[in-house]
């Protein structure tokens, strides 16, 4: 199953990097507002990641428990040589991009996203299925970032003039983290095995989770024009 999940992730990454807004970032053709919208969307998508990782840690199968705890501690800056939490790195990104004034709004929107996710009726009958869907999405982002983060980092440095300090979050998730992403694929296998999913049910949940390209959706679609124009001000 690893191969088919990996292939699905890779397809989504290809779609992201081929998408016009991503190409606009890389070529520098994106406007300042488009760069800022992208940064804002990325912060909104990831600023709550420690909480999502904590949820996954709570459901982790024994074989993946140690790694997931490490991931969680790293997210909150404890098990990381920098000693900086990942949300703090996103705050640095906002500050470097001069988006600090809207950081509160982005955190509010991220909290709203989390609230909506928790409040929405559950499609699945048990927590084990919800956990697999969540794990799949988190690993998909790890997989994507391990292949694309340095390209984004380079685009933001070159075309948006951001310094290394502001871009630490990307460095942490870049190709240096590729082993981490591979580990994520193994965690999906461990999870499926531990909770006794049939191959077919696991495939179905993963396929349902990956029905839409979450990378494009989260990075390029979420901030409304109203929010974007507020940020421009």
């Amino acid at each position: 199953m690893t191969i088919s999940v990996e292939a699905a992730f890779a397809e989504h990454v290809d779609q992201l990097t081929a998408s016009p807004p991503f190409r606009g970032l890389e070529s520098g053709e994106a406007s300042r507002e488009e760069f800022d919208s992208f940064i804002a969307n990325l912060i909104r998508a990831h600023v709550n990641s420690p909480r999502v990782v904590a949820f996954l840690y709570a459901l982790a199968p024994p074989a993946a428990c140690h790694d997931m705890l490490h991931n969680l501690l790293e997210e909150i800056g404890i098990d990381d040589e920098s000693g900086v939490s990942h949300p703090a790195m996103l705050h640095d990104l906002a500050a470097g991009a001069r988006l600090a004034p809207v950081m509160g709004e982005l955190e509010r929107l991220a909290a709203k996203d989390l609230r909506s996710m928790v409040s929405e009726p559950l499609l699945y009958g048990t927590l084990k299925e919800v956990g697999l869907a969540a794990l799949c999405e988190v690993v998909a982002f790890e997989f994507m970032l391990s292949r694309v983060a340095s390209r984004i980092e380079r685009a933001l440095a070159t075309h948006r003039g951001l310094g290394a300090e502001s871009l630490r979050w990307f460095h942490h998730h870049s190709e240096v983290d590729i082993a981490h992403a591979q580990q994520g694929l193994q965690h999906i296998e461990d999870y499926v095995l531990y909770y006794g999913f049939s191959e077919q049910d696991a495939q179905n949940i993963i396929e349902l989770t990956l029905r839409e390209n979450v990378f494009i959706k989260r990075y390029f679609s979420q901030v409304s024009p109203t929010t974007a124009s507020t940020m421009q001000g």
Partner: protein
Amino acid sequence: MKLASATIYALQIPFVESFRHSAHLRQACDSVVLRVVDENGVVGFGEGAPRPYVTGETPEVVVDHLAHNLWPKVAGVELPDPQADGLSTLDAFIPDMVLAGVVSPNAARCALELAMLDCGLRARGASVAAVVPPRRASVTYGGIVTAGSIDAAARRAAQMKLVGLSDIKLKVGIGDDMERVAAVRQAIGPEVSLRLDANGAWDLAEALQVLPPLAPFDVAAVEQPLPRGAVGDLRILREASPIPVMVDESLVTVDDAERLFAEEAVDMVNIRLSKCGGFQRSMEIARMAADAQVGVQIGCQVGETAVLSAAGRHLAAGLPDVVFVEGSFGTLLLVEDVSVESVRFGHGGRAPVLSGPGLGVEVVEDTLRRYAPRVVELSAGGPQL
């Protein structure tokens, strides 16, 4: 209540995945949402989902009919109180009009009726439940499998079973019916109810040939096997078919219902708010169906937003006998829905009856604006395009 202004949003909300049947490929929600505001600033929302192959309406027809024909009749005029005067009074207030090339402009009518109902009830702090009392605490929805490849249809059906849906409708009529039905039945096993929807793909001779071999797959009903038209053909098919016959496109108006039931041409009907012109007419058709001992399915418009889904929930909860219910797919189909709280069904297709004021959903107007390439502002003086 007097309506002071209105806004028409002609939406284009992309789908997460395209939806195909024998008559159409749909990749986005093209509903028309109507926002009305009364003289005290109370806001109400309604929605119509134009389908050229059903009512004959396009989004442009609905927008123009609302802006130029219906709005001038209701703007600035004292309207009936839906709670005190009832749905029939509200329905009578909306003029019936004949439009060239249109079976009946029911999507536009539905949008206006729902908006007036939502606004009028919100003004009193009352729910639609006050005029359509729920007979059950929750509604159970089924799934709809689009007409993609057979393999994809079987996988999607299996996914629907995985999320606990107990009935599934499969789009057929694209030349591979036997293989398609067999694959889907195998994917969902014997315990999930399966029905078919041909969207008028066959003529009588084809339907008589196609349906008998499909009966062993335990098919609960076949929807719209023939194109809208000769009721006599439907009766012949119903008498010969081993699978119960349901109509959808053949049932747009109350007159259609009268003819179908008088001819004893159908076993079931698919009633959809937008197709049938709103609550009052949908409920009237449902009453006629009950009298004729014809089963009722409350259908949806694929790609409808939370506004129409909420209204459909009230209708499905308020009717005494409903065999199948469709709708409330929300973000399973739309990249983004228009309400604050999700109206999407949960595991098993279950969704609670909505109890908030009006239709029971809070619409995010910013979302409407983002997904509306065309917005028409209306005042008591007329449209401002």
